[in-house]
């Protein structure tokens, strides 16, 4: 967190990531055919969990505001993206065709548009939620976000046009390894660069002491809303990816428990630690799967482990620290690799 030596400039980042991305692009498609679909799915799920957890960390960890309605933003993103890939599909397709886009590119372009729309929709909702509720402090903010998360779900459930309580079905299977990978890289770069920027420093200042931050001239409300927006947008991306992986939206699975799951990842990894969030998100996605052999006891183990971990490491696995530069570079590349090892 402190000192710039751990932060690479964006250009260097991109230069570094480009070959990695290309390699993984190839590896990803190979991976899909190599692995048992079950493991492949969990890899994708952990990637989506990483996106959700790192984005929530921007609000909960960087800014010190406590939001427990993240699943609500994911749900907004899920529905918004499904709207593009399902309902607006004939329209977008005709537009793309008239622009002489080759057929192969039709679906990826539409999905890219869907993800963008998901991010936009979620951030608009984030703005609508954030403007009134970010004036609240501490636990009251937490409850307001909880209320929003549950409320938005209840609203979607009552709208029959989007499937009502049974949710949406037959969403095209567009989420692939590459999309998830790009999302993961995107959210990590966003968080890391934010942390190193003036804006990020302002967020940290708010976290440390909101009154003091205000006293030195930081427009705390504006920065809190900003953090909320960025976080919501990435939650929307995670929602879009999840919807196109599950091939449907079941509003019940975006409940308060989902939000809590993400909060747990953030706190377990260490509030404010991006690497911590990444590792906790991957770990907590795999843990129930690893515990499958103990069948009905597995969720009991899961929750007992959670309590134990919190008792033994009250500040999360990493506290506020990030892994050092060398580990960090290695890790960025090995996050999906670690999955692959476990998966294979």
């Amino acid at each position, binding site marked *: 967190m402190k000192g710039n030596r751990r932060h690479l400039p964006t250009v260097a980042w991109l230069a570094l990531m480009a070959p990695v991305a290309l390699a993984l692009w190839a590896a990803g498609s190979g991976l899909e055919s190599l692995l048992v679909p079950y493991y492949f799915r969990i890899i994708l799920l952990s990637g989506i969990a990483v996106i959700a957890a790192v984005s929530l960390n921007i609000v909960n960890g960087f800014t010190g505001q406590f939001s427990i309605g993240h699943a609500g933003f994911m749900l907004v993103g899920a529905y918004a993206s499904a709207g593009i890939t399902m309902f607006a599909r004939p329209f977008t397709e005709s537009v793309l065709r008239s622009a002489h886009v080759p057929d192969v590119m039709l679906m990826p372009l539409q999905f890219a548009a869907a993800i963008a729309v998901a991010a936009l929709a979620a951030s608009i909702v984030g703005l609508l939620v954030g403007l009134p*509720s970010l004036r*609240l402090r501490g636990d009251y903010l937490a409850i307001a976000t909880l209320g929003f998360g549950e409320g938005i779900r*209840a609203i979607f459930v009552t709208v029959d046009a989007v499937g009502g309580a049974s949710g949406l079905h037959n969403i095209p299977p567009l989420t692939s390894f590459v999309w998830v990978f790009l999302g993961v890289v995107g959210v990590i770069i966003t968080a890391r660069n934010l942390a190193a920027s003036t804006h990020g420093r302002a967020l940290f200042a708010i976290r440390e002491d909101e009154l003091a931050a205000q006293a030195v001239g930081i427009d705390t409300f504006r920065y809190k809303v900003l953090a909320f927006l960025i976080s919501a947008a990435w939650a929307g991306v995670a929602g879009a990816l999840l919807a196109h992986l599950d091939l449907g939206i079941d509003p019940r699975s975006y409940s308060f428990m989902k939000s809590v799951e993400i909060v747990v990842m953030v706190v377990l990894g260490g509030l404010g630690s991006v690497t911590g969030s990444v590792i906790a998100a991957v770990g907590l996605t795999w843990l129930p799967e690893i515990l499958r052999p103990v069948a009905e006891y597995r969720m009991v183990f899961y929750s007992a482990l959670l309590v134990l971990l919190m*008792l033994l490491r*009250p500040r999360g696995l990493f506290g506020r620290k990030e892994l050092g530069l060398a580990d960090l570079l290695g890790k960025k590349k090995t996050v999906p690799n670690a999955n692959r090892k476990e998966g294979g």
Partner: protein
Amino acid sequence: MLGSIYALIALGYTMVYGVLRLINFAHGDVYMVGAFIGLYAWRYLGLPSEEGQAQVVSTAGLLLMMLIAMVGAAALGVLIERVAYRPLRRAPRLTALITAIGVSMLLEYGGQLVFGTTKQDYPWLAGTVPSSIGSAAGGSSGISIDRVDVIILVIAVLLVVVLQIIVHGTRPGKAMRAVAFDREAASLMGINTDTIIALTFIVGSAFAGAAGVLVGVRNHYVEPLMGLTAGIKAFVAAVVGGIGSIPGAALGGLIMGLSEEAVRAFYPELADAVVFGVLILILVLRPCGLIGSQTAEKV
């Protein structure tokens, strides 16, 4: 009277929050365990039942069930406090919160293991058995008040009055308020804060246990996941009333219960949305809850 049930659970949230500034997520599950303790007590201890009717419990039996459930829930509450929360007294608040969530999940999944995952029948309260089971929930047209609801309301009001007397009329109650006001100052004044916090958990959990039995008798079934939504809504009620305030929790519980039931009568699928709508509205208009203004937090 869903409202009085919410109020009883909300009291536990509000009290624990008052002394620890901790949202005790496991509280809703203590309520669930309380309901099951009551059920098993009734099943295996042969509590007074209406003669000749196996599935009916008399009012005296209900009170005994409640008493046992309250003791059991209180014991569970203290155990949770001792094992999970006390070691984290000085840790960041979010850590304690996640631990609370972990304990809550542990109770839910553990509950599913111990009690089974299905709904279990709860005894009827004597005099409330409908002639044809199935039209239990007052299916007749117009306004009807069930006997169960009246009894629940009476018991709830009595409990709230008792609580008010404990908190405002006794020495431990005074100590409780002192700890809620400023824990360090209270301990400097010679108050054993650990004891008082444990006491808070005892009282709050006992109330949750009582609420569990009452809701069981009202709905005629209990299940291991019943604490989840009830817990969230009761917590919302506590916040609406102004968290940390006991009359606030009671009031908030009534408001949430009434608004939910009123909406459910007309637009059943919108009930939950309205509950949370009320929450956000009240938070925006009165950021400290209805009766919460006297507890300014930030120095």
